[in-house]
Every structure is written in C-alpha cells, then in structure tokens.
C-alpha cells in the first residue's frame, strides 16, 4: 500500500514535455488547474480532457503510471461523487428511496466533479512525471523569487522541497522495514476497531521519527562538508532558458483559456 505513493516521481524521457522549460511548464500547469476550476459545462471540461489526454500521449508516460497516480485518490473521487449525487438539489427526480433523492442534475454534477478531480490529478502528475524534482524546485525558486521583497527565504523553501522529495522513497523504504520488523513480532494493523488500529501505528511512527532526526542530522553534516551555506553565491549546473517551444506553449495556454471562456458562455446552447 505504502509503495503506491507516486508524489514527485519522475519518469525519465526526452519528449517535448520533458524538454520544456520547467518554469513555463509549472506556470501552464498552474493555469490549467485554474481553467479546470473555471469549467462550467461538459463542453469546456471535455476540451480540457481532450487536451490533457493529448498531452499525456505526447509525454510518452505510460498510461499505467498515470493511473497509478490516481489510485490513492479513488476513495476521494468516489466520495465526492456520492456526496454530489445526494446533495444536489433541483433537477428532475429519477428515483427515490427513504430520504434520498437522486436527480438527473445530481448525477450530472457527480460525474462532472469526478472528472474534474481526475483531470486535476492527471495534469499535475504529468508535470512531476516529466520534470526532475531538482528542476521543478529550481523553477519554483525562480518563480517565487519576487517574494524575496517580503523577506521570504525562497531558496530555503526550495531546498526544503528538494530534500522532502529526495527522502520520500527513503522514508517509504524505512516504513516498510519497520512494519516488517513489527509484523515479525506479531503486530497487527488489519483487525480491531479504528482506534486500536490507529494506536497500533504508534510503534511505527516513533522509530520513524527518531530515525528521521538522525538522518536530518547526518544530512546536515554532509551538506556542510560540501560547502553548503545557503542560497548566497550558489550557481546552477542546469541553466533554464525559454525557447520557441516554451513561447508556443504559453500562446497555446492562452488560446485554451479563451476557448474555455467561450465554451462556458454556452453559446452552443446545450445544458
């Protein structure tokens, strides 16, 4: 179960999406997330779905990996859908049992919401799949740099993100190891009430915390030994440079944005 976590996974490749400037990629993905929230009907949402589908084909990230990133969210998707079915008021009533009413509008909203969440996750995992965590955090550092005016330690935040992403797989391995060690001693997480199951997690969390502190301590030593003194005077091996494909991506995002607005106006005249 714990191995399903795909946050920050990178899928090596050399597609157009891989080669785009990470700053532009981040901005466009961010814009697309906003667009997804702006979508009001199935026409605009359908257009987004089509675009995201084409993007995932371009990225050459296997469909299986994209589905994998959706796996931990299945519960949330279903939960939102079910809630929407029952809580949406109005529309034509389809059937009814006890106090629950299901209307066509309810089903419509449920499908709409579920699609939106799936698209949100897919587009953001496309970003992390095609961008190495280092260039992603570099891009965020550059994009956030105006915040320096407000005395925000942009470099420190970016370094924290890099390290967090770097240690996700290490900590997953660690949890796995601790769980196996506890299992060998007869620990049981699968049975019992919710509270007793939550309590059973304590013997996993305590060693995990202790070892994380030790790791942090050693890592700090190692970073100091490699002359790390913060963001001041640092250079970067990989220089980011906006090129023609990046500008065309920006233009494309603008086009997409206008298309969404137009489709939202419902001039097609349905729903």
């Amino acid at each position, binding site marked *: 179960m714990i191995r399903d976590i795909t946050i920050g996974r*990178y899928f090596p490749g050399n597609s157009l999406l891989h080669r785009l400037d990470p700053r532009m990629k981040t901005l466009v993905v961010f814009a697309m997330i906003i667009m997804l929230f702006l979508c009001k009907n199935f026409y605009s949402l359908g257009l987004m779905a089509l675009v995201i589908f084409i993007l995932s084909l371009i990225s050459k990230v296997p469909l299986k990996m994209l589905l994998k990133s959706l796996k931990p969210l299945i519960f949330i998707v279903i939960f939102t859908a079910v809630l929407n079915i029952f809580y949406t008021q109005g529309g034509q009533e389809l059937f009814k049992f006890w106090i629950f009413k299901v209307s066509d509008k309810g089903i419509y909203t449920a499908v709409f919401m579920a699609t939106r969440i799936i698209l949100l996750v897919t587009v953001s995992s496309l970003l992390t799949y095609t961008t*190495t965590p280092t260039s992603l955090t570099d891009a965020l550092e550059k994009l956030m740099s105006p915040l320096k005016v407000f005395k925000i330690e942009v470099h420190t935040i970016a370094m924290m993100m*890099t390290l967090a992403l770097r240690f996700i797989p*290490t900590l997953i391995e660690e949890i796995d190891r601790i769980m196996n060690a506890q299992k060998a001693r007869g620990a049981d997480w699968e049975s019992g009430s919710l509270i007793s199951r939550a309590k059973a997690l304590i013997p996993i969390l305590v060693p995990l915390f202790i070892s994380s502190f030790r790791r942090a301590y050693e890592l700090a030593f190692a*970073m100091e030994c*490699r*002359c790390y003194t913060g963001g001041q005077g640092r*250079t970067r*091996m990989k220089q980011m440079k906006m090129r023609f494909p990046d500008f065309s991506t920006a233009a494309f995002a603008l086009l997409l944005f206008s298309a969404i607005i137009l489709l939202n106006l419902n001039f097609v005249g349905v729903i």
Partner: protein
Amino acid sequence: MQDSNIKNPIIEFVDVSFSYEAEDDGTQKVLDKINLSIKPGEFICILGHNGSGKSTLAKLTNAIYVPQKGRVVVDGKDTADENLVNDIRQTVGMVFQNPDNQIVATIVEDDVAFGPENLGVAPEEIRQRVDKALKDVGMYDYRHHEPHKLSGGQKQRIAIAGILAMQTKCMVLDEPTAMLDPVGRAEVFETVMRLNKDFGITVIFITHFMEEAVKAERVLVMDDGKIVQDGSPREVFSDVQKIKSVGLDVPQASELCYRLRKAGIDLPPGMLDEEECANAIIKAAEDIS
C-alpha cells in the same frame, strides 16, 4: 629525489585533544593528545573498534569539529579559523557511512553538481567536472538515474564523485563500506585506490575490514583516543598481540602465521595476504624436510 621530504604535510594534528559534553558528569575525552602528520598523496587506513575516536578524528580534519586543545592544520590553514572553513572544506572532502543520508538530489548528476554549485563554479565548468567525476568513478551511464534505485556501492561511488567534482586534494572516508555487501565494498575500495593512484588524491580511509587495511600504504590503529600503532601494514600487522589487545582482528594470513610461529614453525612475521602466506609455509615445509 628528496621529493617526499620537501612536501609539506597536507593535514597536521598538533597535540590535539577533543572531548564531548557528557550528559551527566562533565566531559568525555575522545581524543587525547594526537600528533599526526599526513603527506600529500598518502593512502592511510585508520583502524579501531567502536568508540576509539576514529570518527571524531575524521570530523576534525575538515572543521566539522574544532579541537579544544591543540591545532589541526589543513594545507597550511588552521581549522579553528572560522573564515577559512570553506577553504578547508574545499581541500578535504568527506564521505560518510550511510549513503542514503548524504545524497541531496533526486538525480545522480544533480547530486554530484551540488558541491561545485555551492562553490559558485560557472555552469559550463560544473557540467565538465560532473561528467569527469562520474566517469572517474564509473557511474557515467547512471547519470540520469534516481539514486534510491541504485545499490549501496553505487550510491557511495556517487558520493565520492560529489567530492571529486569539488576537486579536493584530500578525501576522508568514514567507514564508507560498513553498510555494504562484499561486492559493493570491493567496488568502493577499488575506486578509492584508483583515484589515489591516478590523481594523487590523499586518502584517509576509516574501516574495520582488515582486507582493506592491508592494501593501504600506511595504517593507523586507534584505541581509547590515542594512536597506538602507525606504520606500513606489514609493520602494524606483525605485532599480532598488540592488535588483539585493542580488540581488533588481524588479517587471516597474519593470524595463521602467528599461530604457526607460536607452534614453533619458523616463519617471517607480517604476512599479509594468502599468497604470501602460502609461499612462506611451502618454504618452511621444504626447510623442515
């Protein structure tokens, strides 16, 4: 001809004492009046059981710790001078025991670039240094990989490449092979040996594996905060009793010769490897018959 005498020591310990603050009663002495001089290009192995002070000694070489008494001088610079800390760390690079806790980036080449990036090296030069360092440790083909998917030995070689890319003159490795399997251990040790031979990088290699120590130029044995033995592997391992008295083992060949000698067979002391030992035993057997 007098080359080795002209060279100034790259690392020098002068009467160095170091103690940690203990939790309950005052301080705990870890190093006691250490005097040590290391010449450029030397390959030194430091042996010692747990708590003998060898890790502390390593951490004193690049100003992670500063001695309370005495001085540590690296390439003419005193580690106690806070303004020189970065210079010192550019001279002495360090590799630690746990490979997972010293890799910073999620892609191999980005991690190797971390050191030079911190030093403010120009981007094109970092690229060249990183490529060269990765080729030197034989990990160039893995430059786009994620470190957590590599073996322990490969991770340590990346850590070594990270130090190489900083172009340090000296490399201190604190039990880099302790967490590795035999294959990974050999991989790492041979890499370090080659770097020492090809580029003249001074190496201080802390280990508790005797088969590594016998290949060094010079072996230091530490016990209770003191250096109790200092010499070539042959000199150090010929005194089997002394090594055993500080809780260490000798290489198996030395052990065998020692026992045979005790049993009254005439063998020369200080046998290091199997072949040497076998030849000596054959010779002794021929002498007897």
